[in-house]
């Protein structure tokens, strides 16, 4: 009780210094939390991947297509439950800055494979029956104020021309990790148009999405698919959805690494700031610690006082930092729009905030504690007066 009282009162003895230190920690934890959230957002696609889905693409590169005829051969492979296919459409809305993920997909099987996209039965039915229909994520529809029935025209970049669509469904993710900024429409619409405009590009898909009967079969099914098309004109590369998503993230791995390093540097800087505060504090109170030792209090009492004060200050800063991370991340996520579609502060990030604050609090107090415990009582008492 006495120790707690002393920790609390000592912590706010120099209010300005303590408040400034807490503000520094708050800003550091906020910056750390935001950077960690950026990293999480970068990996959001990977995190949302299903273990029972495979992606098959051209072995040379994703930009090379695969024949639609592969669909029936893949379906016959043991372990394959569902097969869907699609093309990256790459259209822009009105102007190039309005960029978002848009795909041409085989609608029925695609919705079967991605149950995390929640549509009402009416929306599903309307979408499946309208060849020019499309489905958009909630965030995307909100951003452009689209409503069911809205006529939307995308300007094709890979598939030239203006493409008209009618919004038939607005999906919601089953949880916060699901990207709600996607746009998908009927592959048949794309294919039929290509048959007229550029027949050589018709009947080709960018990728197959395959649902396996059991997740543990995924590796065997992937090998079977690729061996089926070995030595063909379009050899395939099949990988889990997670590996497929990771291949995109790996292209920007250097950026992620830099962000992670910067987040650690922030923690080291704040560690130095708190250590400086604690060193100053301990130096000022060395006489008081000597008095406590004179009265019979042991080294561990002094250690608890200094560690306690350091931890109290850092944890207060941490709590304020975490509390401000959520609204800041929300505002940041909104401003990033479709660039980082899933921008949520994860529980893991909050845990990392606490671990970082705890480490800062403990490490910053180590040197002051050593000094306070190590000083001879007579020397400490001489500092008073």
């Amino acid at each position, binding site marked *: 009780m006495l120790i707690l009282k002393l920790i609390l009162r000592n912590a706010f003895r120099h209010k300005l210094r303590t408040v400034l230190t807490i503000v520094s920690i708050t800003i550091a934890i906020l910056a750390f939390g935001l950077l960690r959230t950026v990293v999480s957002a970068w990996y959001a696609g990977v995190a949302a991947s299903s273990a029972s889905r495979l992606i098959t693409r051209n072995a040379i590169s994703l930009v090379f297509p695969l024949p639609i005829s592969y669909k029936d051969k893949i379906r016959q492979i043991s372990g394959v439950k569902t097969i869907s296919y699609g093309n990256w459409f790459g259209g822009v809305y009105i102007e190039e800055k309005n960029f978002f993920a848009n795909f041409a997909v085989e609608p029925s099987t695609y919705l079967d494979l991605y149950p995390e996209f929640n549509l009402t039965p009416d929306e599903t039915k309307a979408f499946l029956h309208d060849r020019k229909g499309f489905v958009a994520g909630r965030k995307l529809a909100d951003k452009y104020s689209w409503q069911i029935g809205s006529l939307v025209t995308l300007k094709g970049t890979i598939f030239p021309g203006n493409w008209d669509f009618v919004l038939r469904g607005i999906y919601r993710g089953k949880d916060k990790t699901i990207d709600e900024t996607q746009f998908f429409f009927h592959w048949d619409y794309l294919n039929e148009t290509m048959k007229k405009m550029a027949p050589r590009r018709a009947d080709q898909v960018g990728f197959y999405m395959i649902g396996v009967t059991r997740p543990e079969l995924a590796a065997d099914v992937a090998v079977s698919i690729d061996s089926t098309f070995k030595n063909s004109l379009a050899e395939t590369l099949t990988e889990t959805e997670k590996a497929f998503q990771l291949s995109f993230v790996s292209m920007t791995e250097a950026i992620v690494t830099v962000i992670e390093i910067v987040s650690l540097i922030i923690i080291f800087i704040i560690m130095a700031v708190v250590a400086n505060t604690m060193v100053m504090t301990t130096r000022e109170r060395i006489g008081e610690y000597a008095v406590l030792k004179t009265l019979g209090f042991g080294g561990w009492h002094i250690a608890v006082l200094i560690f306690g004060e350091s931890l109290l200050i850092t944890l207060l800063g941490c709590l304020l930092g975490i509390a401000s991370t959520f609204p800041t991340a929300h505002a940041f996520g909104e401003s990033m729009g479709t660039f980082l579609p899933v921008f949520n502060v994860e529980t893991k990030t909050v845990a990392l905030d606490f671990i970082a604050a705890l480490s800062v609090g403990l490490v910053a107090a180590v040197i002051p504690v050593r000094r306070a415990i190590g000083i001879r009582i007579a020397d400490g*008492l001489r500092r008073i007066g």
Partner: protein
Amino acid sequence: MEKTEPVVEIINIKKTYRRGPHVIPVLNDISFAIAKGEFMALMGPSGSGKSTLLNLIAGIDKADSGAIRVGGIDITTLSETELAQWRSNHVGFIFQFYNLIPVLTAFENVELPLHLTGLSAKERKDHVEMALGVVHLKERMDHYPGQLSGGEQQRVAIARAIVTDPTILVADEPTGDLDRQSAEEILGLMENLNEESGKTIIMVTHDPRAAQKAKVIRYLEKGFLSNAHP
């Protein structure tokens, strides 16, 4: 009151300080005894080693050689942890600059040493109120040191020193930071503690008026002790 039984025995104490390559002798083979219930003043010029001797008796410094027995215990053989525990049970400290903890009230400052005794909160409260009553500061127990005068702070420090009913009271220049009137009050209190409660008091002072309150005056100069003013 019987005052012949020695409560403190100093036997062939030597103490030196090192300043770089130089070894400076502070106490040279000092031996003496302090009887139970004695009020001893230790005088001497600055640097004569009187505070060092007081620190050795109080167990907050270590001698190079010799033995110090307090209440029959040779404290030179105790470890740091044992010494800390011994101090909390047997020594009451009064410092020149009071050395109160500024964030604790008078009550809490006096209560400090009792936290090491295992007494209940109620027992601690009774002890603290009694000690503050002795120094006539019961009505100011909720004041912080910064709200008290120097004399009042020193009275709180005396209450803190006596609250555990220690074997000896050690005072290092207890009136050195006080005006004449406050100094008189403090010395009067110490005199009362010695005469009425039989407390053994060892006081280091420069002030001859303060020393006159003591029953025994010893002088320390250049590391040697004498009973007469050199």
